[in-house]
Every structure is written in structure tokens, then in C-alpha cells.
């Protein structure tokens, strides 16, 4: 998730986005056939376009089209165990692809603080919000730490790669985990001190600088999502078609 504000395009309430993901999961689950899956991806692409992510959605749709064609071909041609393997793999792939595409859009358009604000608004308990916030904040730190650690490893002639791992497993493991976990442990101390001295233990519910609210566009998008799911269910139930 980025820390910068996105000025162009649509803005949606993070709660609405979460709802969309949920609807997307359900729609993927109940999709009567590949065609409906494809329509779902198209719908998501339209949403992405509203967010101004043209490149991303075009790539996503093209890639999916290729996979769909491949799936049809595999279903028609292959047999035996290999086919079973592919069915398992592609089954997962199709179930996940739409959600993954949507998640890509959601993650790149939601600021961490908006997300946390949303969690506050749905009255998620502090015991969940604090670790969640810390986790999101710590992932980039891991990346920074990793850079230092690989530098340090190279200077000690330990290769930070798969080959290095296979030739000197014990040493490589220590080189990776020890500094990373030491740093994590120190960060845990410092960060708790820095948050306790700024009053995080206040029992009153926190307020939030970023104010989120559900607007017309949120309701509109959610309505479309629900409608599509109901439509799918009707098709499956034999009400339509």
C-alpha cells in the first residue's frame, strides 16, 4: 500500500473495497462457467479504469484471456494425472484471479491510514488494530533490513542466494535469521516505547485524522457487485437460462 495520496480518479471507502473483495470471492465461488468468470474480470477491469489504472487492467484482462483459452484447450486435450494436476491448479487460479486483480487495485489505491481508519470505524478491537498497523508499517522495514543483511553477507563471502543456501545451509540460515530477528526484536522494544509515550494505552477509542465516508459511488459499486452475484446465483439455480 502506498503512503502517497492519489489525486486522480475515483475514491472509494476502504470498507466498500473490502465488501467488493468479499463479493468477488463469492462471485468466483458461484460462477456457473468460465464465461461468467471472464465477465467478472471485465467488471473489475472497468472499476480499475475508473481508478485510472488503464495499463494494469489491460494487462490483467489480456493475460486472463490467454489463460482462459489455455484452460479450454487443456480441458479438451489432456487426460490422466497431468489433467488432474492442471484442473487443481487452474481451478485455484480461476477462483483466485479475479480477487487477485481486484486486490491489486485495492492495495495500490488505499493508504495504510485509510485502511486503519476503516478498521476503527467498524470498531475493530485495539488488540487487532495495533498489530495490524505495526505489521503494515514493518513490511517495508524488512525490505530495508534485507538490503543491509545481503551486503553484510557478501562482505563475509556468504552468498545470499539459493545456491549459497544449498552449499552452506547452516551458515546462510544464521546470516539471514539472526540479524533480521535481532533487528525485529529491537524494533519491537523501540516502537512500543515510542507508542506508549504517545498515549496509545488511552482506553478511549482513538479518533482518526483521515476521515472516510461512504458516498454514492461506494453504494453504486457495491450494488453492481451484489447484482452480479445474485444474477450468477439465479443462473445456477436455473431461474434464468
Amino acid at each position, binding site marked *: 500500500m502506498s503512503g502517497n495520496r492519489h489525486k486522480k480518479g475515483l475514491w472509494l471507502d476502504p470498507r466498500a473495497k473490502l465488501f467488493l473483495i468479499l463479493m468477488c470471492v463469492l462471485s468466483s465461488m458461484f460462477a*456457473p462457467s468460465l464465461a461468467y468468470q471472464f465477465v467478472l474480470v471485465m467488471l473489475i477491469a472497468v472499476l480499475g479504469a475508473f481508478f485510472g489504472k488503464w495499463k494494469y487492467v489491460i494487462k490483467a484482462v489480456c493475460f486472463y484471456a490467454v489463460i482462459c483459452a489455455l484452460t479450454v484447450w487443456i480441458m479438451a486435450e489432456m*487426460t490422466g494425472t497431468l*489433467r488432474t494436476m492442471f*484442473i487443481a491448479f487452474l481451478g485455484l487460479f480461476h477462483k483466485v484471479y479475479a480477487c487477485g486483480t481486484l486486490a491489486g487495485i485495492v492495495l495500490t489505491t488505499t493508504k495504510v491510514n485509510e485502511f486503519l481508519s476503516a478498521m476503527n470505524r467498524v470498531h475493530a478491537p485495539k488488540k487487532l488494530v495495533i498489530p495490524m498497523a505495526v*505489521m503494515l508499517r514493518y513490511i517495508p522495514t*524488512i525490505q530495508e533490513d534485507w538490503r543491509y543483511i545481503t551486503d553484510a553477507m557478501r562482505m563475509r563471502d556468504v552468498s545470499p542466494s539459493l545456491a549459497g543456501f544449498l552449499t552452506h545451509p547452516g551458515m546462510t*540460515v544464521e546470516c539471514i535469521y539472526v540479524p533480521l*530477528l535481532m533487528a525485529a526484536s529491537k524494533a*519491537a*522494544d523501540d516502537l512500543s516505547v515510542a507508542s506508549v509515550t504517545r498515549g496509545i494505552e488511552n482506553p478511549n477509542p482513538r479518533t482518526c485524522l483521515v476521515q472516510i465516508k461512504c458516498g454514492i459511488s461506494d453504494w453504486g459499486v457495491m450494488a453492481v457487485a451484489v447484482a452480479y452475484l445474485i444474477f450468477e446465483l439465479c443462473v445456477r439455480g436455473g431461474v434464468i437460462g
Partner: protein
Amino acid sequence: MSNQVNSMNKGLTVKDLVTTGIFTALLFVFVLVGGVFFATNPVLTFFMPAGGGLLAGPIYLLLIAKVHKRWSLSIMGVIMGIIWFVTGMHWAFALGYLIMAIVADFVAGAGQYKSKKLNSLSYVLFSLGGTGSYIVFFADPNGWAQTMLGNGTEQSYIDTMQATANTGILIAMFAAAIITSAISAFVGCKMLKKQFEKAGITA
């Protein structure tokens, strides 16, 4: 240096919560790194839980050693679940981690979070959370393939699914996941003893 005076209290302190958050981040990254190679490979996809379990053992065990209180692992599971969910993973995958983390929490709790054996077992159980989506597949292979095959499920597919080879895959998936996560837990225990306890960073 940083033991808390109120660490004797029952509830999780801010420090415990922050620690949980930081270690969840590490755990998430390591599970992802371990699993991504398998998850994107059609032939090896069933070994994704095994890959995911291979790397995170030391992190998981150090988290227990630092917090050793109930709910820390469960919170971690909930966060993992939410993150898997919003990153578009299969729902059963997210749910699997959530449920298994809670189970793992109770297993480790049975030893007051101090028994290395139970903590290791708890990690193995936690790692099995990654099998969630595959269990859904094996439970209902028809439903899984339906989207692709349309409503008319073919007999040949059902036959293949019922063939012993597939039970084999199921067993292999579990066995691999258990073995890798046990190895990881073993390495974690070693490191805990050799490094982290000596360095004084466990609580």
C-alpha cells in the same frame, strides 16, 4: 533490559501487540517467499503449504518465546487471514490459516508456551493452515472444476479423481507440509537456544 514490570499481568500489553505485529510481518513475508515458487507451478502446486512452512519456524518460535501469552498467535492468525483475503488469495487459504492459528495457540498454550515440543507441534499445525484451499478441492473436486467444465461433469474426470493416485497426492501434500514445518521448527528451536536466549532477547 526491556522486561516489562507488568508482564505478569494476564492481558496482552502494548509491547506484546507491537511484537505480534512485527513478527506477523516477518512471518507473512517468509511464508510468501517459501510458497510462491510452488504456488505458481502447476505440477508442484500441492506442495505450496510445504514451501510456506519451510522458512517461518524460527520466527514463529521466537514470537512465542517473546510473548508467551494466549491470543498472540490467534491475533497473528486473524491478521494473516485478513491479509491473505485482501491480497486475493483463495478464501479457504485465509480461513485455513485463521483456524489453524487458533488451534496452534491452544496447543502451545497447553504447555504454558514454554514447552519446546508443544510449541514446535503448534508451528506444524499452523503451517497446515496453508492446505485449506486444497482441502476444499479434494472435498469437492466437481465443484472445483465446474467453472471450467461447465455443468456437465465428465465421468473420466471423476474417475481420475477417485483413483488412488489422488489420495496419494493428498497424503503427500500433508506429509510434505508436516516434514518441512517440523524441520523448520527444529532449526528454530536450535537457533533459539544457540542464539536468541544467549543474546537475551527472549522474554
